[in-house]
């Protein structure tokens, strides 16, 4: 309990610091928002006027306090470029990316658990070598390349699935899934390959532990020992990796959204960068960083549930 309180407090501090870092990073850039909005030929007077209008002539901390206060209410400010409220746009896109990441993780897990267990059980045999070789190749293929290959195979050649685009779940569930299958697989394949190796190596090192021999010596069969005694112990290091994996997936989603033209957070972020819409970039980055921090907290707590040695401390 104590630990949960302490970790949550750390999370809150990290969120505040992270948001400030992001804010400061983008606020001190060469050429302020007004200059960017007015283009290079603007007169200093015009820039000063617009700065006052945007509020960017105020001290940095005041600006941050203002922006952060807004964040607490879900108000991400109004874009200097499109003059739209940023909050609702982020909210719309967030759901899309969340679906993408969740599906990708599911694919990765469905792939990695059996593949990792088999690769560990078949360790030292040809089949095991083949599986771990395949996972090596899987890791080496970047998600966007996997995406391109999948598009070529299933959309271009077979014509079975759409090459890109998105339909909201609320409009047509079947079409929604058809559009997301390839992005899910391209995210899941790569992360699944990475995860496979972790599951395999965690199981292999657990298999070398004395308690596995104790289990076998009391009459537990080889496979049962692997599943009943091996997996619960192997899960502990794997879960720590899972936290990192989720943040990798989040970032991977940015690229995969680009491949499949999916209107998610990544797409929004890239558009913000293109338009030099800094307030928008700031908002999306903060949302993504907070998501990473929260996911890390969740895995850390899960880690404690799995390991009684940490629980009692």
């Amino acid at each position, binding site marked *: 309990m104590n630990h949960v309180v302490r970790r949550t407090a750390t999370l809150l501090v990290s969120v505040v610091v992270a948001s400030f870092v992001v804010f400061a990073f983008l606020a001190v850039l060469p050429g302020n928002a007004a200059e960017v909005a007015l283009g290079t030929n603007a007169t200093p007077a015009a820039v000063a006027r617009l700065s006052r209008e945007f509020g960017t002539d105020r001290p940095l901390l005041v600006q941050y306090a203002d922006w952060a206060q807004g964040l607490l209410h879900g108000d991400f400010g109004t874009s200097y470029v499109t003059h739209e409220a940023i909050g609702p746009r982020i909210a719309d896109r967030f759901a899309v990316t969340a679906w993408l990441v969740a599906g990708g993780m599911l694919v990765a897990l469905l792939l990695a658990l059996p593949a990792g267990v088999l690769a560990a059980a078949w360790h030292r045999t040809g089949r095991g070598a083949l599986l771990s070789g395949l996972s090596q190749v899987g890791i080496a293929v970047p998600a966007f390349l996997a995406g391109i290959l999948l598009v070529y195979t299933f959309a271009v050649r077979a014509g079975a699935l759409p090459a890109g685009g998105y339909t909201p779940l609320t409009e047509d569930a079947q079409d929604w899934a058809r559009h997301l299958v390839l992005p899910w697989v391209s995210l899941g394949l790569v992360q699944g390959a990475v995860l496979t190796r972790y599951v395999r190596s965690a199981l292999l090192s657990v298999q070398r532990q004395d308690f596995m021999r104790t289990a076998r*010596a*009391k009459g537990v069969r080889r496979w049962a020992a692997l599943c009943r005694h091996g997996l619960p112990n192997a899960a502990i290091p794997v879960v720590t990796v899972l936290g990192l994996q989720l943040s990798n997936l989040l970032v991977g989603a940015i690229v995969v959204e680009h491949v499949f033209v999916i209107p998610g957070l990544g797409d929004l972020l890239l558009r913000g960068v293109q338009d030099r819409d800094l307030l928008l970039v700031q908002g999306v980055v903060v949302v993504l960083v907070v998501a990473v921090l929260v996911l890390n907290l969740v895995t850390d707590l899960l880690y404690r549930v799995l390991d009684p040695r940490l629980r009692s401390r």
Partner: protein
Amino acid sequence: MSPGEPLLEVTNLTVDSASAQLVRGIGFTVARGERVGLIGESGSGKSLTALACLGLLDDGLRPGGSVRLAGVEFDLLGASDRQLSAIRGKRVGMVFQEPMTALNPVRRVGSQITEGIRLHGTRPTRRAADEAAVELLDRLRLPAPRQAARSFPHQLSGGQRQRGVLGIALSNDPDLLICDEPTTALDVTVQKEITDLIVGDCEERGTAVLFISHDLALVSSVCHRVLVMYGGRIVESGPADRVLAAPKHPYTRALLAACDLTPGSRARAIPGVVPAPKDLPAGCGFSNRCAYADEQCAAPPEPTGEKPDDTVACWHHDALPSWPSAAESPDRDRTEPAHRGKAVDSELLLSTQGLTRHYQGRRTGLFGKRPTFRALEPIDLDLRAGQRVGVVGESGAGKSTLLRLLAGLDRPSDGGVRYFGRADGPSGGAGSRLQVVFQDPMGSLDPRLRVREIIAEPLPARRSAAARERVSELLMAVGLPEEAGERYPHQLSGGQRQRIAIARALAPEPAVLLADEPVSALDVSVRAEVLDLLRTATTERDMALCVISHDLGVIRYLCDKVLVLRDGRLVESGTVESVWEAPRHPYTKQLLAAVPRMRY
């Protein structure tokens, strides 16, 4: 079910790895209710033998030969995992060396015991199995068995965990219990409890025991019959009293001599090192270290003897001098120069006043107080030139804390150490006039440095010609060839590494030498030579020696004075003789009583 009927019959057992044969065709039987000891140093193949019997060898190892168990119609070697699983834990239970890692850390102890009971269906219901597990833990004299069953392994002490492991092994009343070094990792008083428990319980239920150990005295106190292994072969077997009182094989004799740490004499180490399996000589595996070896030993000797369970595998066993022979027993003539008694008024090198070490533990609650862990309560001691003091105690006694404080590697929380009459701060310390020999010779030598550089480390000008010369001198002093200086630590054996650690400690000509468990990481056969080196090196140079050990025999062999620590407190001190002959503190008595003694 009559005793004497063979229960386990092993014939021509071999274990091969990809590169060498690790067990080279051994045969033995264990009768019902019989306790058989399997003695050997590390690498002798004794653990592999036990694992092979139950089909638990690692994937890379291949067994050969035959293992039969009474009442089982198939050969255990080559049986399927399904067939073996029905026997493991039911007919044969097994206990391993490391209680800290032998239990699954994420499952409760009770459930690990009931798993075996449920698996073999010896209790009808889950509730009955749970009850049986608690009863078993109670039978194994675990205090609060019900609570222990609900605990996770990390919540129990080493001895308690080993009772848990024993509980798993005994849960289905097996006919045979295989124990692989079951007490090596435990304190000596706990070791006694556990071995008493094994002997008592198995005696009562007629369970046979295959007891694997490197400790001859322990085996002699547990077993009826012993098998001595060397280099993957059984070199001698027979009733424990015969083998240990009148050994026939040169290896058994050498091992017994090496273990005999009679004070005031010099133990005899076995020359050379235990070779790696692939470097074993053809024929008799011991021939390259044996004083009696000749050309005949190039052919492998068969085990011979009047009875099949009393054998020796040596070409020359008839020709050996009668035991104990003068050449093999501890050397009582070459005792050290008389120096005892002189220490009383020699120079005071080191003294402590109220030396204390308390640690602040982790905060238990968000606003809770930090608990204090009392590693060492105030202690006063003096160390004079030529004096040899031993500090003995079990884990948690504060021995290592004391050593680190004396060496200036840790700061006392109260009190202090005076070095050479000056009250130096702990960081100023004794300078290079105090040096330490550490426990683990692998860990105390930087694997990235050559031996020469390691020994030169405490010297002032490491690269000078004088330093080079000093290193050569030291190598000779510790009995290593000059060219050993160019090697890396991993290229040397354990005993050689500890010699290098001693050479390094001697390099700056210290006045005080501290030794932390100097032989506990070494094989029995090389212990004696390292102890002798420590003794001669300190006596010749009139140094003060302070040895820390859990092994009373080591202290008795090496020291004149002994301090007994328990839970951070000094409970008794005095001359070695007086403490041995007439211990006053009950804990000292308990400690002395727990030391396994050679029965024969």
